[in-house]
């Protein structure tokens, strides 16, 4: 029976690959035997040798996050073989755009009401009205939509836009699963 150098049970990768799990196995810290599906997915999409190559190019303290993100991508692609994680990104992008439009509308409403409040306060000598203690001339909490988009993702996302037609278009011609599927919505 296979065993690791420390006589523990072999890691999920070595079990899957049917090989001896040696001490210092690069997979062992990240693919415990209790999670066989994790390596199965990663192997199906990326292959063991590609994962080894990817991990060897990273510093040891980066490898756990890298393996988890690879596992996330692999699971997303197993669930959605066409779009994988890109389906989730597309869905989340639409959510961001929708929220920003609502924010812009609320900002406009606030400015209008703040202007009305300012005018009413100045023309009404009675002290019966309430006044926003912060500021009678309300200013938007958020910058404009364009300014927010410039700050999105700290530059990485903004400078690397998705150059292809994406699923979940406005006419809802998506193929695989309901919105939010494909492994989307998770936080690393």
């Amino acid at each position, binding site marked *: 029976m296979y065993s690791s150098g420390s006589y523990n049970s072999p890691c999920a990768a070595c079990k899957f690959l049917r090989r001896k799990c040696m001490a210092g196995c690069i997979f062992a810290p990240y693919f415990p035997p209790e999670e066989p599906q994790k390596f199965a997915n990663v192997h199906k*999409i*990326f*292959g063991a*040798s*590609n994962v080894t190559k*990817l991990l060897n190019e*990273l510093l040891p303290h*980066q490898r756990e*996050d890298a393996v988890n*993100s690879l596992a*996330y*991508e692999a699971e997303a692609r197993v669930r959605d*073989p*066409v*779009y*994988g*994680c*890109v*389906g*989730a*990104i597309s869905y*989340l992008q639409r*959510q*961001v755009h929708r*929220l*920003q439009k*609502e*924010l812009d509308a*609320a*900002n406009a409403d*606030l400015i209008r*009401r703040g202007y*009305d*409040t300012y005018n009413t*306060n100045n023309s*009404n000598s*009675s002290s*019966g*009205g*309430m006044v*926003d203690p912060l500021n009678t001339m309300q200013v*938007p*909490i*958020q910058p404009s939509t364009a300014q*927010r988009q410039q700050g*999105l*993702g*700290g530059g*990485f*996302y903004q400078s*690397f836009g*998705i*150059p*292809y*037609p994406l*699923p979940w278009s406005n006419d809802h011609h998506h193929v695989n699963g309901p919105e939010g599927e494909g492994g989307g*919505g*998770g*936080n*690393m």
Partner: protein
Amino acid sequence: MSSSATGTSRCAACRNQRRRCPTDCIFSPHFPSTDPERFDAVHRIYGASKVAKMLEEIPPEMRGPAANALHFEAKCRIRDPVYGCVGIISTLNEEIRDTGTELAKLRARVAFLASGAQERQLGQDYTIVDDHWTEQQQIGNVVL
């Protein structure tokens, strides 16, 4: 240089793999020779055989979008070897959370202003000064 049976040049995948490009090459519609970087990226992250296997498992009409998505994810992983495109998902989730919070605050402030405006509007028609209705009646401002 060898060429496919139809005499056209090899696709980027077959060039990369240094082999003949058959007429039914699964890569050629999606990895043209004019864009070698595209196949280089997916080959680097997934490997040619994995890409071929993934494309074979998808209906032909969906292979184009699948190849595009694979290319995008490969580019993300090359650019960010630790998080790949999952980093983008995290960023978007944070953006959604933060924007939702700001929207809720903004709506609360709008509601506050709206309620204040309503009270001020009422105050112009109805002046209530403690129990001194007689005083207000003299002024002529009280409507009970």
